């Protein structure tokens, strides 16, 4: 199955999710899909064709969707509950809290088209608050994959572990990141994609490739930026954050709110153990209308924006 999008070399991570769950489902009959009329937007039409009896479309009813997922897990299934991240998380938050996280059920929540993927559709359809809401729930593993390879690996890892997982899947096209041979995804382990001792950029999801480009721009100015892919936000790789703090300056960047997400998680660690100058890049609140590209540009979530933030931070570090 090809997961390549029309734009050469760029990928929609939803395709990687679909590829991974179909491949898992071939080998394990416990894998089932639960959707809220979101087969197409979850890229699960192929799954549904192959396994109609293992596809549960509850219609437009997110509270029921998440509860049904918990019930299926009780019956020994491994449900992937897949819907647009904005509706899955906001509408069904109490079900996620009580039926999934607190009950500690083997439910895999899949938030599709997360962040600002729905650009022009506006803040009702953006899911930038979900990181704050979900990362504080005990028992719940939260993963924000950065590219197709990591998305596939994260889906497989989610199926392997017993317990609730939230997979935050992006839609904005991303390239396949270059990784050393033998690279392996591990839940709760950050990945240093580039070494550097002047500043550390900690990113996840669609922002990882932009952080790498920012590091290229900084290198041209003689600044060595470390780039850390913090794809698991819960449980957090505290060691990797401590190591990043050795650079003396940390920039976090995420396709999410600047409050309570990856930046907040890193800040909690730093403030209580390794205080160091920090910038948190993301979105400030309800966003104005615009395309995804426009909004990234407007709020500085571009390689240049990230590089500028890092440079400004370095002047604080020096002061």
């Amino acid at each position, binding site marked *: 199955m090809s997961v390549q999008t029309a734009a050469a070399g760029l990928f929609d991570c939803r395709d990687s999710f679909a590829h991974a769950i179909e491949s898992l489902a071939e080998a394990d009959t416990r894998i*089932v899909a639960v959707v809220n009329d979101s087969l197409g937007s979850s890229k699960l039409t192929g799954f549904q064709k192959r396994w109609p*009896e*293992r596809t*549960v479309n*509850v*219609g437009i*009813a997110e*509270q*029921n*969707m*998440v*509860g*049904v*997922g*918990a*019930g*299926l*897990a*009780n*019956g*020994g*299934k491994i*449900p992937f509950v897949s819907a647009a991240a904005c509706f899955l998380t906001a509408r069904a938050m*109490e*079900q996620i809290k*009580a*039926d999934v996280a*607190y*009950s*500690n*059920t083997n439910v895999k929540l899949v938030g599709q088209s997360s962040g600002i993927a729905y650009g022009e559709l506006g803040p009702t359809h953006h899911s930038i608050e979900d990181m704050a809401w979900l990362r504080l729930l005990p028992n719940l593993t939260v993963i924000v994959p950065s590219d197709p390879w990591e998305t596939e690996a994260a889906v497989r890892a989610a199926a392997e572990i017993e317990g609730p997982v939230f997979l935050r899947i992006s839609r904005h096209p991303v390239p396949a990141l270059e990784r050393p041979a033998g690279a392996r995804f591990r839940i709760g382990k950050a990945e240093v994609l580039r070494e550097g001792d002047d500043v550390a950029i900690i990113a996840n999801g669609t922002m990882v490739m932009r952080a790498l480009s920012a590091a290229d721009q900084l290198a041209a100015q003689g600044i060595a930026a470390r780039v850390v892919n913090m794809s698991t936000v819960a449980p957090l790789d505290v060691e990797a954050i401590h190591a990043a703090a050795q650079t003396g300056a940390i920039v976090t960047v995420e396709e999410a709110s600047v409050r309570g997400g990856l930046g907040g998680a890193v800040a909690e660690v730093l403030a209580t153990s390794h205080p160091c100058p920090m910038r948190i890049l993301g979105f400030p609140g309800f966003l104005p209308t615009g395309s995804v590209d426009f909004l990234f540009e407007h709020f500085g979530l571009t390689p240049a924006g990230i590089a500028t933030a890092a440079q400004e931070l370095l002047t604080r570090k020096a002061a």
Partner: protein
Amino acid sequence: MPQVSADNRRNDPLPLIRDKARAIRITALKMVFAAQLGHPGGDMSVTDILATLYFGVLRYDPKQPNAPWRDRFVMSKGHCTGALYATLAEAGYFDRSWLETYMGPLSMLNGHPNRNYLPGVETNTGPLGHGMPVAVGMAIAGKMDAADYRVFVVTGDGEQQEGSNWEAGMAAGHRKLSNLTLIIDRNRLQQGAKVEDTNTLEPLADKWRAFGWEVVEVDGHDVGQLHDVLAAPVGTREKPLCVIAHTIKGRGISFMENEVKWHHGIPNRAQYEQALKELEA
């Protein structure tokens, strides 16, 4: 394999159910009085339903609480843990001495049930309207596996005001989940007032029929009626079953019956002693 109800099917189950109901009421009252916390009104209204299920209907083995073949029971009105925990202890899931810790510091007997602490609890409830969707998921899993276990869920009647019940009910009707039974503890009182004065449920039976369910109304304190409808095999029924159990909040304790303040009112010592005398009579 399931011993409790197998025995019951050979014999007349009703005397045992009545004995258990009496014991559950007394235990729940003692727990609430000891903890000075709880929801005695709803404990008393749901007791005959729980006693009928656990001592005449459900197939389970308390020594294997996660056995795949077990019937599932979901206590969606999770605040009525006095009755639920007393029932689970009577059923042998844990020692009765645990009940003395009810809502105490670090007790496994939380105010609302936690499956990770207590064997026999299928899903954590407390916020209302959570049991139905989870029960629907269990019933779908059973259908997928062509398993013969059944799924029972009890909601309060005030709880029916939560929209998630209707989301789940619509899906269950659509999918013809004949292995699913909803029991509504229709005691007509919610926390603050009469249900019908707060947000009308009637015509409740018609609503569930319109959602694709078979509906039966019973006296929720007549364990014979409860047993007849709940223990009847699914047979050729192709719809989920809704049992509207007409009950009395505070049932068995004269001054609590039909009084809204006993939703979570706690008796003083004199009231407690009178209540105990009435339940033991």
